[in-house]
C-alpha cells in the first residue's frame, strides 16, 4: 500500500480511436449500445487464412493531423497515437503552449510498427532502395518519440513492449511517477496498428483467433460456452494523468482517480496464462488502492474468449473476491472493439472509467450461452445499470505479464 506522503493521481483527459469509434463520444455511445467493430479484414487479402476477420479502425485522413513530410516518417501506429493523444490533451483542456512542457509520455505497444518493418524487409530482399526515413519509421519507440516531438514536452518518455499488457504497464508506471513526485503530468496509454500480413499469419498459425462464421460481429464470444478465441484489432487510447494538486491548481475537471495498480509475473510457459499471476495482479491492485474488496463493483476483464483465459480469469476473480465475486458486474469489451493488443489496456481503462462514471456496465457481446464454468455476472449482451465507486481493469499477456488497474469514480 502507498504511504501517506504519496500524491493522489487523477485522470483529467481521455482520447481514443478504435474500431467502434474515432473519438471518445463515438466510442462510448457504440460501446454501451452494444455495437461491434468486427468485420472482414480490409488491410490485406486474408482469404488464405483460417481467420479472415478483424476489428480495424478504418480510414482516417492523417494529412489533417501531420504534414506531408511527416507522413513518410510515421507508421500507422504513430498516426493512431497522434489522433488519440490530441483528443486526450483537448479533453483535459491542456494548453499545448503553456501546460505541457514538463509532461511525460509513457506508452505501450505489443506489435510495434510491424507493417513498416515488413515493407522494409520486403523492399530490401527484392533489391529495392529503401527510403532514407525507413529507420525513423521502424523504431519501436517511434510512437512515444512522435508525441514528444509533436508536443515538445520534456518529462520522462518511454515505451513498454509487454504484448497485451503493454498499455496497462505504461499507465501503471506513469501513475507511479506522479504518485512519487517524479512527474506532475503524464500522457499515458497504448497503441497498436493492425498487424502486418506476416504477423497476422503467425497469429493465425497459433490458433487463438476466432475463425468467425457467417456474421463477423458475432465471432468473439467471451465467457460463453461457444467461445473460440479473440478477434485481433487496432487502435490507440491515451489518458492524461496528473497529480490531484496539479489538476486542481489549473482548474481541470477530474474524470476519475487512478486508485492503484498491481503487476505480477508468472510464466509457467510462454503462452499459458496462470491463475497465480492473475490473482496476484488483482490482489495487489486492491491493496494499492487501499480499499476493501467489497468496495469494488465492476471489473473490465481481460476476457479474450480463449478457452483457458476465460476459465482462469473467472477462477481468479472468485479466488480474490470470494463471495463478493457474485455481486460484481464484469464485462469483456474486447468483443466490441476487438483485441487491440498493446493498446487494449488503455482502451479498456477508458471503457472502465466511462462505465463507473455513467453508472452503466458495458455489455459483453455475444454471450448468449454462458459457460457453466464461467458462472459470474459477465453482463451478457446488454449494458446494465450499476452504482459502484471502484473498478478494476485486467490486462494479461503472453510471456506471463499480469496488470490490474484500479480506478475510482470521478
Amino acid at each position: 500500500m502507498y504511504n501517506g506522503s504519496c500524491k493522489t493521481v487523477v485522470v483529467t483527459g481521455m482520447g481514443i480511436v478504435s474500431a467502434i469509434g474515432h473519438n471518445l463520444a463515438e466510442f462510448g455511445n457504440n460501446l454501451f449500445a452494444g455495437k461491434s467493430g468486427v468485420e472482414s479484414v480490409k488491410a490485406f487479402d486474408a482469404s488464405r487464412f483460417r481467420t479472415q476477420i478483424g476489428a480495424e479502425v478504418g480510414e482516417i485522413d492523417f494529412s489533417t493531423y501531420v504534414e506531408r513530410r511527416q507522413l513518410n516518417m510515421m507508421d500507422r501506429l504513430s498516426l493512431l497515437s497522434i489522433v488519440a493523444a490530441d483528443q486526450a490533451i483537448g479533453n483535459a483542456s491542456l494548453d499545448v503552449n503553456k501546460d505541457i512542457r514538463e509532461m511525460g509520455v509513457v506508452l505501450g505497444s505489443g506489435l510495434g510498427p510491424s507493417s513498416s518493418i515488413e515493407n522494409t524487409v520486403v523492399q530490401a530482399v527484392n533489391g529495392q532502395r529503401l527510403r532514407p526515413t525507413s529507420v525513423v519509421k521502424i523504431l519501436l519507440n517511434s510512437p512515444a518519440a512522435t508525441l514528444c516531438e509533436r508536443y515538445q514536452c520534456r518529462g520522462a518518455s518511454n515505451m513498454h513492449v509487454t504484448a497485451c499488457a503493454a498499455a496497462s504497464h505504461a499507465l501503471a508506471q506513469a501513475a507511479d511517477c506522479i504518485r512519487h513526485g517524479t512527474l506532475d503530468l503524464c500522457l499515458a496509454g497504448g497503441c497498436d496498428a493492425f498487424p502486418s500480413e506476416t504477423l497476422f499469419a503467425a497469429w493465425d498459425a497459433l490458433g487463438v483467433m476466432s475463425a468467425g462464421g457467417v456474421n463477423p460481429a458475432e465471432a468473439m464470444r467471451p465467457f460463453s460456452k461457444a467461445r473460440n478465441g479473440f478477434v485481433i484489432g487496432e487502435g490507440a487510447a491515451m489518458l492524461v494523468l496528473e497529480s490531484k494538486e496539479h489538476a486542481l491548481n489549473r482548474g481541470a475537471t477530474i474524470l476519475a482517480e487512478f486508485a492503484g495498480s498491481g503487476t505480477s509475473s508468472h510464466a509457467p510457459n510462454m503462452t499459458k496464462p496462470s491463475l497465480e499471476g492473475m490473482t496476484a495482479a488483482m490482489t495487489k491492485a486492491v491493496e494499492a488502492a487501499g480499499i476493501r474488496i467489497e468496495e469494488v463493483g465492476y471489473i473490465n476483464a481481460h476476457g479474450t474468449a480463449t478457452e483457458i483465459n476465460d476459465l482462469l480469469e473467472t477462477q481468479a476473480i472468485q479466488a480474490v473476491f470470494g463471495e463478493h465475486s457474485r455481486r460484481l458486474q464484469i464485462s469483456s469489451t474486447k468483443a466490441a472493439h476487438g483485441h487491440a493488443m498493446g493498446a487494449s489496456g488503455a482502451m479498456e481503462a477508458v471503457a472502465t472509467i466511462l462505465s463507473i462514471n455513467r453508472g452503466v456496465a458495458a455489455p459483453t457481446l455475444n454471450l448468449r450461452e454462458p459457460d457453466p464454468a464461467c458462472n459470474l455476472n459477465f453482463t451478457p449482451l446488454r449494458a446494465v445499470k450499476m452504482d459502484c465507486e471502484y473498478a478494476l481493469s485486467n490486462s494479461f499477456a503472453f510471456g506471463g505479464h499480469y496488470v490490474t488497474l484500479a480506478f475510482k469514480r470521478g
Partner: protein
Amino acid sequence: MTDEILKIVSEYLNIPVEELTPEKTFDDLGVDSLDFAEILFEVEGKLGIKAKEDLLELRKKIHCLGDVIDMANELVRENQAEKAAHKA
C-alpha cells in the same frame, strides 16, 4: 524540369510553389538532413533517375533548388543518351 522539381518540393514541404525559386537554399527552407534525403528520394522516384553519389557527398554539393534541377537535368540527359546508344 524546373517546374516539376519545384512542384515536388512544394508538395513535400507544404510551401506554395510560387514561393519557390531555383535560388532558394535548403537553409532558407529550413530543410534538415532527413528532409534533404527524402526530397532527393522523391525527385529520383518521380523522374526515374538515380544520383551517382551518396547522400553525404550530395549534401556537400547541393545547396539550393537550382543545384537539384541541374543534377536532375544532367541525369536525365545521360539517361536519354544511354537509351539512344542502346537503340543504335
